[in-house]
């Protein structure tokens, strides 16, 4: 008999007032008992709507059935047949819009907590198993992957499993892409990302850091070096600014810079050399997950007051509900329906305040969300010493500007055949944010997976 409790087994978490002062993981994870109890809420439906909601089609009811029986390693093995990064996905996927959004249990009550169960299996495996994946027999064909983020790592893993000799070229000094520079430690511990990458290396994937493709080597040179196909997963790294007065002041960061200093460069640890401003009051501009991450990092780095400044309402915020909820619990102040007009300096050229104008919502715009309209004369100042712009990113031009024949759209995104992920160049595939603009980890992984399949088909014919 399934467990008919209408609610999920609650996730143990650090108390808000304690966790907003440390970088340890907020959600502590299920115990085996909790996992088995939650797993028994799954009805094991015949038509598996949850699987269709997953961009990498994790065999959800099958793995949950094993969890319910306490067969955790078996459950892990089922997950990893389609998902190379389960410890990551279990933590950062927007499950409410994907698998859990389609769960039948969600119609009358809460869905099964698929994400937490996936995380549990991955963590259980990491903790209890020393087995490394076995390196498959090589087929002798070399494939280059550009960017060691979610799409590149997924593509590399899938190809390595099929016997390809895969080299991943990463511009930073550490592999992981947004998983290491963007998403903070308290949401995704870096030791977990490192383990997942070590698993890929055990499969035979070679990772070369410090390699800015487009500068040190071009894609054409990679082909000259014997790579038979290439996957571009270079992400959407270029930060947007608002182009308002005062953005050049000291104390204005892009979220990319603030998060990279904090997460990749470990500015929060004393034994690293990375400097970051000691902020007292911070305004983070934007309403997405990146804005929530930046705000929560600022709080942990010691800021007394942290605002989220967002031009639409709470309902329209693109961030995951859970992230917004966590931010609120941690004392982040939401200034919704507010839009920055300019950033004001002190006498030393440092940020003194941000001037905003109140907004109201009009008719829905092209995105389907109600368009924010300025309320004339409603300007107000928030006294802050730091402003973090988290209003989006676009793809980096380094590769497209050095690769002849690579077509992009007007936003700089690489154009691909959506079924095969092939670009306008033969043998060159792309996926993730480099194609879609800033999106989610799991969508990037789905694209990497599709590209690996296409590359395999392309090279099998050769």
């Amino acid at each position, binding site marked *: 008999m399934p467990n008919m409790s209408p609610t999920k087994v609650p996730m143990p978490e650090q108390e808000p007032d304690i966790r907003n002062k440390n970088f340890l993981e907020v959600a502590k994870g299920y115990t085996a008992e909790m996992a088995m109890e939650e797993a028994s809420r799954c009805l094991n439906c015949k038509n598996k709507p949850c699987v269709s909601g997953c961009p990498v089609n994790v065999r959800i009811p099958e793995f949950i059935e094993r969890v319910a029986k306490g067969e955790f390693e078996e459950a892990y093995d089922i997950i990893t047949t389609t998902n190379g990064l389960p410890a990551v996905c279990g933590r950062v996927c927007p499950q409410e819009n994907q698998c859990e959004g389609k769960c039948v249990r969600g119609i009358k009550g809460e869905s099964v907590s698929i994400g937490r169960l996936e995380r549990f299996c991955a963590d259980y495996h990491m903790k209890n198993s020393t087995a490394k994946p076995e390196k498959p027999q090589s087929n002798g064909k070399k494939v280059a992957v550009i960017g060691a983020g979610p799409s590149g790592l997924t593509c590399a893993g899938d190809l390595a499993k099929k016997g390809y000799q895969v080299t991943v070229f990463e511009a930073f000094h550490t592999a992981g892409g947004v998983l290491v520079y963007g998403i903070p430690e308290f949401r995704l511990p870096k030791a977990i990302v490192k383990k997942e990458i070590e698993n890929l290396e055990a499969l035979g994937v070679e990772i070369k850091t410090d390699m800015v493709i487009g500068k*040190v080597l071009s894609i054409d040179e990679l082909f000259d070096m014997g790579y038979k196909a290439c996957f571009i997963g270079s992400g959407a790294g270029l930060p947007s600014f608002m182009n308002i007065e005062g*953005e*050049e002041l000291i104390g204005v960061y892009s979220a990319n*810079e603030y998060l*990279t200093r904090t997460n990749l*460069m470990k500015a929060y640890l004393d034994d690293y*050399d990375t400097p970051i401003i000691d902020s007292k009051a911070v305004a983070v501009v934007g309403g997405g997950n990146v804005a929530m991450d930046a705000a929560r990092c600022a709080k942990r780095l010691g800021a007394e007051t942290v605002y989220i400044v967002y031009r639409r309402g709470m309902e329209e915020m693109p961030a995951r509900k859970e992230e917004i909820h966590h931010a609120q619990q941690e004392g982040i102040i939401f200034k919704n329906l507010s839009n920055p007009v300019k950033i004001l300096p002190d006498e030393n050229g440092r940020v003194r305040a941000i001037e905003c104008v109140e907004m109201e919502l009009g008719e829905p715009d092209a995105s389907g969300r109600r368009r924010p309209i300025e309320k004339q004369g409603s300007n107000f100042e928030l006294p802050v010493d730091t402003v973090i712009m988290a209003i989006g990113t676009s793809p980096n031009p380094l590769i497209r500007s050095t690769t002849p024949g690579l077509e992009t759209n007007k936003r700089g995104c690489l154009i691909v055949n959506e079924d095969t992920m092939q670009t306008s160049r033969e043998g060159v595939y792309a996926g993730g944010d480099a194609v879609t603009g800033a999106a989610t980890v799991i969508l990037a992984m789905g694209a990497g997976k599709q590209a690996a399949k296409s590359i395999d088909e392309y090279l099998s014919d050769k």
Partner: protein
Amino acid sequence: MYKILKRRQLNDTVVLMEIDAPLIAKKALAGQFIILRVDERGERMPLTIADCDREKGTVTIIFQIVGQTTMLLSQMKEGDSLADFVGPLGKATDFEGAKRVCVIGGGVGCAIAYPSAKQLYTSGAKVDVIAGFRSKDIVILEEEFSKVCDNLYITTDDGSYGEKGFVTDKLKSLIEAGNQYDLAVAIGPVPMMKFVCEVTRPYGIKTLVSLNPIMIDGTGMCGGCRVTVGGETKFACVDGPDFDGHKVNFDELMKRNGTYRAKEQHDKEHCRIYGGGANA
């Protein structure tokens, strides 16, 4: 890991190193830079490439000891290895076919002015070099410069070597003496570049400057290196590091380079200035 093949102390605080980095050496052009990390806990520090040897596969860097990272770097010996060495980043200098050029270097900035002089001279331009230093004991690269220019003028602030005065004084006198430069290249501390631009502006001599703002990745990702050029925001790492000096907002750059200066003084153990100091 990137091995240090050669280490030479140019003066008390300026060190030259040749790094084994064949892929970068193959591609590097005058004006481009690298980013290095000394060790696993170090900062990413940008340094403009001083020279490279495509056959030997080496890239030369020259830096001044100004803070934590340059201090750590200076303590490394031949045979030691750097954790990271990334490049070549940024755009190569576009000399626009200039035929009569004055290259002006200030202090350790001479290290970066040198490859420009070398490239211009070997491509057939007539090159004057003005290399300015505070005093005789910190003069660097005199011999190297003398091989890649038509006239080398060394100035010192205190007159202990070469001509007494600032590079701007010498530049002004050369222009007033009738030298018709079609390009000036100024590389050094931000105030020096600013004042060189003020000298050349009334004569309409195009002036290239190499900027050194604070940055992390060097690929356009952090936006920390944004500078205002001709009223527009540019990222020095991908749009530069060279810009038309007559359009650069130097005062803003100086302020931004001071972002962590107070913190540095307050907490010397754990942080440092970079970018703003390393090339200055």
